[in-house]
């Protein structure tokens, strides 16, 4: 009987052990492995557009393509026309200013300043056909440019200075037959070149992302998961998630790392604790403008110098513009360590007509947040500084008319007269111009979200937790181990230790000197 019991026990032990071993082999895949698997399945168009009769047409006008698209995709144009890609404004609550319709069409920046008066060129990046002035019909669905976003041939380009019309060289029929989910090449055409050139504005969005390596962007890497913009910037009814704080104010519609990776994705609890106060981007974007330089400052006051009466450009050794007669002088930077600020997801905005104090740098989009606000986290930003035109009597920024279609129309890029550009530009936005202009220092804050580095290249602990020259050296209001200390306690502690050491040395020395003294009773 006992033998049987022992045998049973042994059997149970063996079964239990093998079960445990098998279970270990069936271990759950890590969340990261699941994400890789999810994005390894590439979306393929469910239909072959080359076979549709509606698209087997030699399109002459791009509006005809739109008509063909909406003949099947009914209702979609209406969705598009509700998006900020179309209206170039959003209804935003701006702290201290109320509810305002703001966006690309009316907010000033410190790059090319604003679109007013220059729509002919700026609206090359509008998803419509022909928004050159107020006469453009924002209600006509035929003006929607479907191809700008849905071209899958990478051949669709819009013409320069044509207010969004395609370049005459584009084979509209071919493009129309090869449409699909937006690709990096579609979004990038505009979003990588904002501000008039590659990587001018963002610093983390540039042409290197058309075909990036893993080191440049771990998500979009062509040799990696090869994610597309719309994998994160998901859309429903053409309303796309994500926005930039250069234009928007409210903490909504944001793309968040956490929505895929979860709020605490590290195996290490100490790292997870950081997520209360530190945004993912802070550690995972160690540097920006990794491949090509981004603009750090722009001095409009230097614009207007001519050679033999003609505008010119000057490039540095690497071929980057450092001076342009039409724009002024620039400072660029590459492989930059970000600046860091507290950010709660809301921003304020300088709105056209706001007066300001020109003796101090004017921040056009101050990001809100502080250590004491439980919703704020530390985020990395690019700061862009400029010297830009303002009305010295009215003490507000001037929207100059920049683009010039014919001499004498007041566009600065043709006439090189700030007086005329200010006059025409301010007429366009409907604000008085005093006739007196100067140049004011301005700053813009650009939160960095792209070009996530592989985890091996994430910012290491010691880069912030250090006394001298750490990344967060300038960020105050809180105690950080390794950086901060109480100078009093340190002074007291080091003093006490030093006194003790001296005491020990003196005492020990004296004992040695007097070692033969006395009776030596013991």
């Amino acid at each position, binding site marked *: 009987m006992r033998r049987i019991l022992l045998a049973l026990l042994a059997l149970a032990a063996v079964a239990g052990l093998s079960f445990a071993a098998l279970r270990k082999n069936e271990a759950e895949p890590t969340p990261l492995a699941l994400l890789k698997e999810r994005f390894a399945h590439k979306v393929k168009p469910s239909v072959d557009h080359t076979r549709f009769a509606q698209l087997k047409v030699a399109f002459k006008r791009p509006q005809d393509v739109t008509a063909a698209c909406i003949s099947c995709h009914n209702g979609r144009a209406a969705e598009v026309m509700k998006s900020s890609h179309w209206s170039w404004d959003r209804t935003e609550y701006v702290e201290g200013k109320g509810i305002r319709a703001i966006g690309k069409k009316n907010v000033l920046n410190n790059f090319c300043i604003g679109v007013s008066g220059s729509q002919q060129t700026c609206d090359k990046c509008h998803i419509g056909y022909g928004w050159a002035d107020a006469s453009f019909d924002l209600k006509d669905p035929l003006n929607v440019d479907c191809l700008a976003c849905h071209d899958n041939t990478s051949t669709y380009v819009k013409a320069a200075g044509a207010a969004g019309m395609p370049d005459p060289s584009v084979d509209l029929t071919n493009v129309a037959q090869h449409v699909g989910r937006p690709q990096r090449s579609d979004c990038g055409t505009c979003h990588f070149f904002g501000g008039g050139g590659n990587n001018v504005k963002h610093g983390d969005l540039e042409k290197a992302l058309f075909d990036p390596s893993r080191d440049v962007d771990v998500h979009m890497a062509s040799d990696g998961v090869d994610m597309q913009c719309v994998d994160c910037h998901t859309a429903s009814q053409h309303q796309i998630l994500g926005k930039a704080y250069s234009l928007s104010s409210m903490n909504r519609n944001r793309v968040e790392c956490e929505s895929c990776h979860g709020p605490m994705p590290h195996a290490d609890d100490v790292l997870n604790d950081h997520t209360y*106060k530190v945004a993912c981007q802070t550690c995972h974007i160690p540097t920006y403008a990794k491949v090509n330089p981004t603009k750090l400052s722009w001095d409009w006051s230097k614009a207007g110098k001519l050679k033999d009466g003609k505008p010119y450009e000057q490039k540095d050794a690497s071929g980057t513009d450092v001076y342009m007669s039409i724009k002024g002088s620039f400072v660029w930077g590459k492989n930059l360590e970000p600046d860091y600020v507290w950010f709660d997801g809301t921003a304020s905005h300088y709105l056209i007509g706001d007066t300001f104090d020109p003796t101090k740098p004017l921040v056009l989009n101050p990001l809100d947040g502080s250590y004491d606000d439980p919703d704020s986290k530390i985020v990395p930003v690019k700061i862009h500084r400029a010297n830009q035109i303002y009305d010295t009597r009215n003490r507000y920024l001037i929207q100059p008319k920049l683009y010039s279609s014919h001499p004498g129309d007041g566009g600065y890029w043709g006439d090189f007269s700030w007086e005329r550009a200010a006059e025409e530009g301010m007429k366009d936005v409907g604000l008085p111009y005093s006739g007196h202009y100067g140049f004011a220092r301005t700053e813009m804050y650009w939160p960095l979200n792209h070009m996530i580095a592989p985890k091996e290249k994430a910012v290491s*602990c010691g880069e912030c937790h250090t006394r001298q020259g750490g990344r967060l050296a300038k960020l105050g209001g809180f105690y950080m181990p*390794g950086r901060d200390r109480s100078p009093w306690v340190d002074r007291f502690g080091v003093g006490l230790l030093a006194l003790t050491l001296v005491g020990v040395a003196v005492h020990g020395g004296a004992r040695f000197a007097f070692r033969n003294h006395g009776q030596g009773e013991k």
Partner: protein
Amino acid sequence: MKRTYVYRSFERFWHWTQAALILFLAVTGFEIHGSFRFFGFDHAVHYHAVAAWSFLVLIVFAIFWHFTTGEWKQYVPTWEHLRAQADYYVFGIFRNAPHPTKKTVLSKLNPLQKLTYAGLKLLVIPGVVVSGLLYMFYRYPQRHEVLGLNVRSLQTIAVLHTAGAFLLVTFLVAHLYLMTTGHTVTSNLKAMITGYEALEPDPPPVRAESPSPSPAGGPVAALDAIAVAD
């Protein structure tokens, strides 16, 4: 002088493990403090946490040992001979005068040691342990939590922890030096390693009358003996 078993095996194990842990905690702790770079900040943090937990386990065992053996009574501070002991370190030691207090199994510590160790065990180590636990479990203030439990800043906790660390390191230096002030320069060290030390064999006359003191009886037996003498 008689070879006597003074420090039992657990006591020695506790003493040396504690010494090693405090030293290691000091090195990793002051690296976290930013005083120097050695392991690298991230490694220092993890090593410090592992050593801290080990130290806590050791403390639990040590407390158990102190109470079950009654050894805690060794550390009860006394004014008696305190002055004499201080005078010895300032004057007597240079004249090679005898120690003013006798070291016995029942009274291993001189009055200054009693005072120092009591302070260490009741103030400094608890202070460092409590601030260390608060440090370890510190959560930055956040919404959606019990607001009353939010501690605005890590500063007070960290500064207290650092101050305690300075005191412990200072103690370590003084302790290492005073170790050499036994009967010979190395007799204390040898005793803490082997457990044995040459001590005066003869107990005071009053003690002879009392029942033979067991180690577990500790200083209580000695106190009883004194009471009898009175």
